C-alpha cells in the first residue's frame, strides 16, 4: 500500500530541527516545537498501525538508486511499527521531561541539545521504517553523528573522552555494517528486508555466509553485546534524558532491531538453523546477559548500574531472536517496547533523584524513598518489571522467552532457559539493594530534624512523565495490546514463519 505517512514521520523531527535553530532566543517556543513534533510523530506512527494489522505493509519509495534492485524508501511492516511506536511515544514523554531537567539544572547549549535530539530521533524513526539495508544504514549513521553532541554535552574532558570512545566504537561499527550491506548486495542483488529471509543468500558458500553474519554483528555494535559494550556505560556522562531515550531506547534498540532484522528478515530462520548461527548468537547473548548482570552488581553509580542492566536486558532480545522459535521471537519483539518503557522509567527516576538531591551514587540514597515517594515508587515498579515479577510488563516478555527456550529442539534449549532464569535472579540482586536502600535504610549522616520526612520531589515536569511510563509498564501487563503492540507482534511472527 502506497502512503506518504512514513515520509511525514521522518519530516516531523527534521522540520522541528529546522525551526529550533532560529528560535534559540525563545526557549518556550523552542521546546514547543520539540513537543509538537514528537506528538505529531507519535500520532502519525500510530495511524499506520490499523493498516498494518490488515496484513498490508505501507510502502513509500523515495527514489530508485543507481544500483539495480536497490531503492531508497520506506516499508513499514509490523516489526518496524513496533519499534517506531516505542521510540516515538517515549520521545514525547522524554521531551516533556527534558524541559524540566534542562531548566532545573540550568544546562548550557540547550538549543544544540534539542537540535541534535531531533536528528537522533529522525535516525531512529528512519531505522524503524526503512525498507532495506541501504536506507537503514543511512539513518544508522545519522544516529551515530547526531548523538555525539548529546554525549559530550557537558564538554568536560571526561565527557569528551566518553564521546571519543563512543565514536571509536560506533564508527568502525558503521564501516563493518557498510561492508556487510555491500557484500549482501553483491551476493544477492538485493538488500530488501524479506520476511523469512533473502532466499538467494542460501546460494552463497557457507563460509561467506558465516563471515558475513559476523560482519553484521560487528556492524550492530550499537546493540552493546559483549565484549563490545564498553561505550555504553561510558556514554552515561550525557544528560539523563539522553541516557534515558537514546541509550536505553533509540540507539541501543536500533542496534538490537538491526540484529533481529538480520536474523529474521535477511538470513531467515532456515538459514540460521542450517549454518548453526543461532547457537553462536545465543551463546554471545547468554554471555552478555550473565556477565552484564555481574558488572551491574558491582556499580555504585546508579546510571552506570542501569547501563549495565541495559546491556544485559538487550541480550534478552538477541537471545529470543536467536532461539528461532515462535515464542522466543515473540518474547524478543515484546521486550523491545516493554523494556523500553521500564528502563526509561528507571533512567528518568535516576535523573529526578539527581535534580532533586544531586545524588548519583546508590550508597548515598539511603532513605530517599521517604523524601521522593512518587519517584521511588515508579522506580520500584519498573525494577520489579525488569526482574520479571507480575503485574509489570516485563513478566510477559520473559515468560514468552522462557517458553521459546523450552520449545527449542535441542538440548541447548534447557541451558538457555537456565540462563534466562539465572539472569533474572541476578536482576533481583542488583535492583533489590537500591529499593532496600531507598525505603528501609536510615540515612547515614544525622540530618537535621527539619529535613526529616519532608517530601522533596523533582519538578512536576519530570515527575509526571516518569509516573506515566511506570503506569504504562503496568498497563502493558494488564492489556498487552496497548498501542496494538501484541497484535503487531502476532502479525510479525506470522510473516516470519510464513503464516503458521
Amino acid at each position: 500500500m502506497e502512503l506518504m505517512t512514513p515520509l511525514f514521520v521522518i519530516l516531523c523531527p527534521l522540520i522541528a530541527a529546522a525551526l529550533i535553530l532560529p528560535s534559540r532566543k525563545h526557549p518556550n517556543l523552542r521546546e514547543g516545537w520539540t513537543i509538537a513534533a514528537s506528538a505529531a510523530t507519535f500520532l502519525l506512527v500510530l495511524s499506520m498501525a490499523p493498516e498494518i494489522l490488515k496484513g498490508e505493509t505501507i510502502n513509500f519509495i523515495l527514489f530508485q538508486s543507481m544500483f539495480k534492485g536497490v531503492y531508497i524508501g520506506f516499508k513499514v511492516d509490523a516489526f518496524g511499527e513496533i519499534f517506531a511506536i516505542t521510540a516515538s511515544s517515549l520521545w514525547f514523554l522524554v521531551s516533556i521531561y527534558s524541559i524540566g531537567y534542562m531548566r532545573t539544572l540550568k544546562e548550557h547549549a540547550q538549543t544544540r541539545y534539542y537540535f541534535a535530539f531531533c536528528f537522533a530521533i529522525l535516525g531512529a524513526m528512519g531505522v524503524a521504517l526503512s525498507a532495506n539495508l541501504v536506507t537503514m544504514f543511512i539513518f544508522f549513521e545519522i544516529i551515530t553523528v547526531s548523538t555525539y553532541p548529546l554525549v559530550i554535552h557537558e564538554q568536560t574532558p571526561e565527557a569528551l573522552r566518553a564521546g571519543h570512545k563512543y565514536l571509536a566504537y560506533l564508527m568502525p561499527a558503521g564501516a563493518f555494517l557498510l561492508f556487510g550491506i555491500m557484500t549482501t548486495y553483491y551476493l544477492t542483488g538485493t538488500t530488501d528486508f524479506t520476511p523469512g529471509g533473502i532466499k538467494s543468500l542460501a546460494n552463497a558458500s557457507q563460509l561467506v555466509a558465516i563471515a558475513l553474519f559476523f560482519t553484521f554483528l560487528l556492524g550492530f555494535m550499537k546493540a552493546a553485546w559483549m565484549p563490545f559494550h564498553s561505550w555504553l556505560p561510558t556514554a552515561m556522562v550525557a544528560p539523563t534524558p539522553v541516557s534515558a531515550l537514546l541509550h536505553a531506547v533509540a540507539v541501543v534498540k536500533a542496534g538490537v532491531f538491526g540484529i533481529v532484522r538480520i536474523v529474521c528478515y535477511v538470513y531467515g530462520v532456515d538459514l540460521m538453523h542450517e549454518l548453526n548461527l543461532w547457537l553462536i548468537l545465543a551463546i554471545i547473548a547468554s554471555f552478555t546477559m550473565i556477565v552484564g548482570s555481574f558488572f551491574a552488581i558491582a556499580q555504585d553509580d546508579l546510571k552506570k548500574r542501569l547501563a549495565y542492566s541495559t546491556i544485559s536486558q538487550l541480550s534478552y532480545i538477541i537471545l529470543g531472536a536467536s532461539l528461532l522459535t515462535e515464542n522466543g521471537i515473540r518474547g524478543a519483539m515484546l521486550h523491545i517496547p516493554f523494556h523500553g518503557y521500564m528502563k526509561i522509567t528507571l533512567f528518568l527516576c535516576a535523573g529526578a533523584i539527581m535534580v532533586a538531591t544531586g545524588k548519583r551514587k546508590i550508597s548515598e540514597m539511603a532513605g530517599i524513598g521517604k523524601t521522593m515517594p512518587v519517584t521511588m515508587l515508579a522506580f520500584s515498579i519498573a525494577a520489579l518489571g525488569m526482574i520479571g515479577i507480575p503485574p509489570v510488563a516485563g513478566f510477559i516478555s520473559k515468560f514468552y522467552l522462557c517458553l521459546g527456550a523450552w520449545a527449542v529442539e535441542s538440548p541447548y534449549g534447557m541451558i538457555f532457559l537456565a540462563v534466562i532464569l539465572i539472569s533474572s535472579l541476578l536482576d533481583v540482586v542488583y535492583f533489590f539493594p537500591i529499593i532496600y536502600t531507598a525505603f528501609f535504610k536510615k540515612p547515614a549522616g544525622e540530618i537535621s530534624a527539619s529535613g526529616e520526612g519532608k517530601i522533596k520531589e523533582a519538578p512536576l515536569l519530570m515527575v509526571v512523565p516518569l509516573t506515566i511510563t511506570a503506569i504504562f509498564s503496568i498497563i502493558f501487563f494488564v492489556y498487552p495490546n496497548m498501542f496494538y503492540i501484541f497484535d503487531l507482534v502476532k502479525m510479525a511472527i506470522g510473516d516470519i514463519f510464513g503464516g503458521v
Partner: protein
Amino acid sequence: MLLAEQFPVLIVGLSMFMAYTMLLAGYLNRRLPFYMTLAMNSLVLILSLFILNHVLTVGPIRYWQGGWRPPWGIEYVVDAMNAYLLIIVVSMVILGLIYSKRNVEYEIEARKHATFYVLVQLMAAGLYGITITGDLFNMFIWLEIASLTAYALIAVAGGRALRPAYNYVIMGSIGACFYIFGVCWLYSVTGTLNMADMRLLLPLVYDNKAVQMAFAMMVVGVMIKAYIFPLHLWQPDVYTYAPSTISSMMASVHVKVMFYILLRMFYSVFTLGFIEHFIGLDMLICWVAAIAILVGSIWAIKQRNLKRMLAYSSISQMGYILLGVGLSPLSPWGLVGAVAHILNHAMGKGCLFMSAGAFAQQEGLRDIRNFEGLGKKMPYASAAFTIAALSMIGIPPTAGFASKLFLILASLDAAQYPFVAVLLLSGLLNLVYFWRVIDQMYFAKHEEPKDAAEVKEKGKALPLSMVAPMLILASLCIIMGIIWLTDIPLPLINHILSNLRMGVTL
C-alpha cells in the same frame, strides 16, 4: 552545423582574449578585472551547459580548428566526460572568484590585484583548454599555460610562499617535460598527435618499447602534476602558503584537470586494451592508490596547521580517484566512483579550503589547537566546514558517502577485497583528523573574551561574498550526495562509460 558545436572553441578563445583585455583594463581601473573575469566565466558556464545538453542529446562535439581535418589539424573533442568536467571547473572557478573578492583584498596587496585576476583568468583558460582539446600536443600547451599561471599565483602571496612556489616550478616543469617526452615518442612511432587517431594506431604497436616508455613517462609526468603519492612532495607546502583562493581552486579543480589528462590517456589514447595487455598494471595502479589513500590520511593526522592537514587529505583523496581508475578494467563501478569523486572532492575540498581561509582572515587562526569556540564566533563558516568534513569522512547522506559506496562496490565487483578494507579504514582515519577540528570548534571549552572592545573588533561578520560560496558548496555536498544515490545521474554516467569505451553500461 549547430551553434553548440562552435562553443568549445569560443570558450577557450574568449577566455584567452579576455585575459589580455583584462590586463589592459587593469591599467584603467584596478577593480575592473575582477568583474570582467566574473562575467567571462559566467558566460562560459552558460556555454558549457549548452554543450552538456548537446552532448547528452546529440552526441560528442568535434570541432576542427581552421577547418583542417584531423589528423593534420587540431581537433577539439567534447564528449560527456569533458562536458561534465567542464561544468565542474567553471562552477568552481566562479565560486572561487566570488569568494576571492574580499579574501584577496585581505591577503594580497592592492597593486597586485589586477594581475592576480588576469592570472586567474589565464589559468582558467588553460584548464578549459586541457578539458576541451583532443590533441596531445595542444594539451601540452594548455597544460603549460595552466601550470605557469599556477606557479605565479602561488608566488603572489609572497614571503613564505616563494620557496614552495619555486619548488613547484621545478617539479611541475619536470612533470611537463616527462609528458612532452612521452608525446614525442608516441609521435615518432605513430606519426600522429590526434588522440582519436592515435587510439586506432596504437594497438598494433603495444609491444613497441618506445610506446611503453612513452606511457610510463606520460603517466609519471601527470602523476607529479596531480600529486599522486609518492610524487606529492611539492604539494603540502604549496597548499599551505598559497593564497586561500588559490589553494581552494587548485585543490578543487586544478588537480582534477591534471588528473583528467591521465584519465584521457588511459581511456582514449592507450585504452583499457593497453592496460589489460600488461598483466598486473591495473593492480599496480590500485596499490599505488591504496598506499596514497592511507599514507595521506596518516600524515594528515599528524598536522596541526589546518591548511596543511587539508593538503595531505587531498593527497589521500586523489588516491580514491586513482583507485577507481585502477579498478575500472575489472568493474565499471570503478570509473563511476572516480568520476563521482572528481565532483565530490571538488565541492568538499573547495569548501574546506575556503573556510580555512575564512578562519585565517577573520580570526587569524591557522593552528587547529587554537580553534576553541570558533563554532560560536563564525557559525556559518564552521557549519560549512563541518558539512564538508562529514562529506570527506563519508557520512550519509553527503556526497562523499556516494563515492565511497561506488568504490566499495567496484572493489567487490572486481573481487579485490583488500581495497574495501582500505576504503573503510581511510574513512575512519578521515574521521580522526576531521573530527579533531570539529571537536575544537564546537565542543572544546573556551573562555569568553572579557574585553568587550576586542569582541567587537573581532566580531565583524564575514562578508556575504565569502560566506555564500562556502554555504553553496556545503549544501551542494548534501544535495549531490542525495542525487548520486538516485538514478538521476544514470544517463550521464552511461554516456561517460560509452564515450570512454568501457564497453558496458549500467
